């Protein structure tokens, strides 16, 4: 631990923002274990005591699910870790997940007033700490549930949005069944986010918590195929919440993309995370492990891929991004972790084609250097190719992490469900209501690929709207409308 200062209750000693201990970079690239170890109890108390308990806490405005942040920090300060976890759970059923994957730096922590002169309170690390403390102590508490309403709700997809809706509605006394297409619940939390960033045991614990609330989880059910949305209604569900995610990977449409060794990030990560090909041949799903892996893209998914490649034994793991570092959408934490581990960044670099060997396996990628020109529609300076700057990089695996389109299965099989031109389901921003009666939607299938917490925020609003439709009771929180964008 870097900091050994004792808190001095009498005087206001200035405590620096605490850092979590983590696996050294050289060691962690040899395993898939989680990188940070988390706070010690002493650190948690020190860090929570940094909060000055604002009367009008700005941080809460930055939280899409409205957690009572000063409230849970106060409980931590007083050493009441388990109670702090329960306090968070009043608003957020999945704190162990959010504490790990939320972009706090653009949400609650961005608005923390301490951040003006010093560093903001580590709200995310503390959320993670108490959620873990609750789980490890075996003190996971089932909150008081409302009496059964007799209403049934089907939730399509078990990612962050689906889990949130299910949890909220179960607490309100509704009978909820989650339908998951894959063989394990969790959606992107299990197929997408790697073990070293979000251990699957934590996702499992959070799903078990929902089960304890009375939520039923049915896996291997592809809604739209096995059962349609209309059939779910006919089966007696009073409302449907569609949270099927942004699961249809985009490719670059450059030559060589169907060579062996070219993966969408979804495939590369799914083979590793859901199917555990990093444990091949103990696990059966194979994966081509490159010696030199190029990941195309600049978001968190690209970082997850590049860091996974190192753990799979790559000697070189490159990030190929056509803009500059400042424009990278990935979280700062993730970029820094990648740098520490030895990911090499090639900014202002555009892939032109992927070259194969005689057996159609990737052998190289031809790229071109770019420079920043005039600002484009997004206000960011447009990357412009530098003529004659093309060169060939020897690589044997290419991971394309440039984003996803919404999964088409539900829109294709649900007559009357209005969709955007790009395929996303059209849903009311505040309630998640779609063009079909009793059908709500939220998460990436509505917004396009975004963050876990935004999907959870959408899930929470939809849960209140569904509850209102089913019972007439209005629980919608009084909350300022603006939540900072997270991408």
């Amino acid at each position, binding site marked *: 631990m870097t900091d050994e200062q004792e808190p001095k209750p009498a005087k206001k000693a200035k405590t620096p923002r605490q850092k979590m201990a983590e696996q050294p970079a050289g060691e962690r690239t040899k395993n898939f274990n989680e990188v940070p170890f988390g706070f010690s109890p002493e650190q948690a108390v020190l860090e929570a005591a940094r909060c000055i308990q604002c009367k009008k806490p700005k941080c809460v405005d930055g939280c899409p699910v409205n957690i009572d942040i000063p409230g849970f920090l106060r409980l931590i300060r007083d050493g009441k870790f388990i109670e702090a976890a329960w306090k968070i759970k009043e608003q957020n059923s999945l704190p162990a997940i959010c504490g790990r994957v939320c972009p706090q730096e653009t949400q609650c922590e961005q608005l923390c007033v301490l951040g003006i002169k010093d560093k903001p309170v580590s709200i995310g690390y503390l959320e993670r700490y108490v959620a873990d403390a609750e789980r490890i102590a075996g003190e996971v508490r089932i909150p008081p549930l409302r009496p059964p309403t007799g209403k049934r709700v089907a939730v399509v997809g078990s990612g962050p949005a689906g889990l949130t809706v299910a949890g909220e509605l179960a607490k309100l006394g509704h009978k909820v069944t989650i339908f998951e297409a894959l*063989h394990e619940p969790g959606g992107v939390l299990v197929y997408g986010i790697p073990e070293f960033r979000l251990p699957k045991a934590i996702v499992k614990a959070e799903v078990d918590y929902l089960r304890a609330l009375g939520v039923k989880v049915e896996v291997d059910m592809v809604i739209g195929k096995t059962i349609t949305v209309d059939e779910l209604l006919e089966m007696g569900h009073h409302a449907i919440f569609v949270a099927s995610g942004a699961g249809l990977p985009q490719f670059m449409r450059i030559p060589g993309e169907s060579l062996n060794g070219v993966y969408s990030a979804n*495939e590369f990560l799914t083979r590793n995370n859901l199917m555990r090909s990093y444990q091949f041949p103990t696990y059966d799903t194979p994966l081509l492990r490159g010696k030199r892996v190029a990941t195309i893209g600049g978001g968190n998914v690209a970082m997850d891929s590049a860091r996974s490649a190192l753990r799979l034994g790559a000697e070189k793991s490159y990030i190929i991004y056509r803009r500059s570092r400042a424009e990278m959408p990935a979280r700062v934490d993730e970029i820094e972790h990648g740098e520490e581990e030895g990911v090499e960044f090639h900014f202002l670099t555009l892939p032109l084609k992927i070259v194969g060997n005689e057996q159609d396996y990737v052998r190289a990628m031809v790229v071109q250097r770019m420079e920043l020109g005039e600002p484009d529609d997004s206000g960011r300076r447009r990357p412009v190719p530098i003529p004659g700057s093309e060169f060939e990089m020897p690589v044997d695996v290419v991971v394309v992490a440039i984003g996803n389109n919404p999964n088409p299965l539900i829109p294709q099989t649900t007559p009357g469900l209005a969709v955007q031109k790009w395929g996303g389901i059209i849903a009311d921003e505040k309630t998640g209501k779609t063009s079909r009666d009793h059908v709500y939607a939220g998460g990436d299938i509505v917004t396009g690929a975004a963050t876990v917490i935004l999907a959870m925020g959408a899930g929470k609003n939809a849960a209140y709207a569904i509850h209102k439709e089913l019972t007439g009771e209005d629980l919608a929180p009084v909350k300022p409308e603006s939540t900072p964008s997270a991408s």
Partner: protein
Amino acid sequence: MPARILKKERIAPAIYRMEVEAPLVARKHRAGQFVILRVSPTGERIPLTVLDKDPAAGKIVIVFQVVGKTTMMLEDMAEGQEILDLVGPLGHPTEIHNFGRAVCIAGGVGAACVYPIAKALKEAGNHVVTILGGRTAEHLILEREFTATSDRLDICTDDGSKGLHGFVSHRFLQILEEREGVDYVLAVGPILMMKAICDITRERAIKTVVSLNAVMVDGTGMCGSCRVQVAGKTRFACVDGPEFDGADVDFKNLISRLRAYKVLEDESRQLYAARRHACEERAQAEAASESQP
């Protein structure tokens, strides 16, 4: 959800027919669609052909050829045991119309995919000629079933042990030369067979549907492992297919992609074969020691 094996039958060397309990899939399945299954908690997900369904009995019939570890494990499963995960039906159903004169070409285990489609084509009023091919007479499957659903069944074997001595593509060319008139072709079997058929029909502008057995993981469009090149565009066999207009398919690319994991798949298979062998030896040794007084 888990699917109990109700009946298991070897119908040709290394080819099995299995009846499994899958009421939801049985209710929904239409010709052309497939299922994905996983047999163990450490297993991979593989797509398999659905031969038939019985919604009333809540069961489907799957057919598989033993080619890798997962199908070896399926081969080792007994009636009454449960397949850990079975999900479906996936993919688009075949577009069935009365096209007129339809030729259904079935090679090897691909016949299992052809059968429900041939049946549906027949029911829709088509005149159905089926060409069924296999390496030897022993390798032909579903002959009786095709007899019932075809106006005429032609059989080809590579070694001439039954029917015409030669490939299904030879027989198909003969049919075209006999000027029977062909409005619709369905071809499912080894990639080279489908390619040969499409090379014939492309220049004659005969509509030809092929079903592509690409490598899949989730089977719902999420990963893109099953991408195929069709008319110069990337399509996903799981959600855009599995059937495509054969004239536009890049078969060379499909052959490469199907080979992508060959080394790793061989490793898996050999490890499993060694384990299987060890089990058998142990069982034999136990049996021998028991039989001794």
